[in-house]
């Protein structure tokens, strides 16, 4: 699902606290409170500089859309790993 549909506004990779506050119509101090209470993840780039990733915004505003999804994982190299384990085991005897 695309972020625009999830959030209802034009998405960006990262937001400043002020940008996010404007988008969701709250005071910037509210966004900073969320960050300080660890209710909203933000990357601290400097003493007073934060960037909020899109993932954190999605998680805050639409938690269902932020849930991790199951994916297919390639098992090809695991057969080779098992072959190496077997050779190692035989060599140890």
């Amino acid at each position, binding site marked *: 699902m695309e972020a625009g549909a999830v959030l209802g506004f034009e998405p960006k990779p990262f937001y400043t606290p002020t940008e996010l506050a404007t988008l969701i119509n709250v005071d910037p101090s509210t966004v900073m409170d969320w960050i300080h209470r660890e209710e909203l993840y933000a990357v601290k780039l400097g003493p007073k500089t934060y960037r909020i990733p899109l993932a954190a915004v999605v998680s805050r505003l639409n938690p269902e859309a932020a849930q991790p999804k199951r994916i297919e994982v*390639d098992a090809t190299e695991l057969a080779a790993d098992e072959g190496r384990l077997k050779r190692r085991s035989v060599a140890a005897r």
Partner: protein
Amino acid sequence: MRPGQRLTAREFHQRLEEIAKAFSGRYGQVGYGTAEGPNGDATKLEVHVDIPGWGLPLIATLVFIEKHLWDPDGERYAYLYDLHLEPRPSGRFAYHWHNDVPHRHCEITAGAPDHHYEGVFFDDIGWAAEELFHMAISGISCRGLRPLRDRPPEPAAA
């Protein structure tokens, strides 16, 4: 987590859920899954994080792989935590521990010679994720890393 500790199927599943949850809502869009070798002696759990995700152009991709391998001597454990700046090849930073050698990879531009560096064993995946995510935002630097003398062979996929 340390070598020699064999996880039950339930513990392995819990580990996967724990990692996927640790990443969700923080760095990007998260996908996760597991795979097992044909004999059941090798299991891999994998978490992919697309930054930023949700259909926007990719800035970076994080791939986290843990492998658990069992032989008569006990469990062997390996991890590969890789950051790739997008579009590839734009740079890579990684924490690896395979073939019993913990090390780091650092490439500001792809194909640079000697990109294996000394590293230490760690078991805090949250710390690794945080470090790699900062690099996704602010760029990769190889400054201060010490080249690794004996390079471990690369795994088939990372």
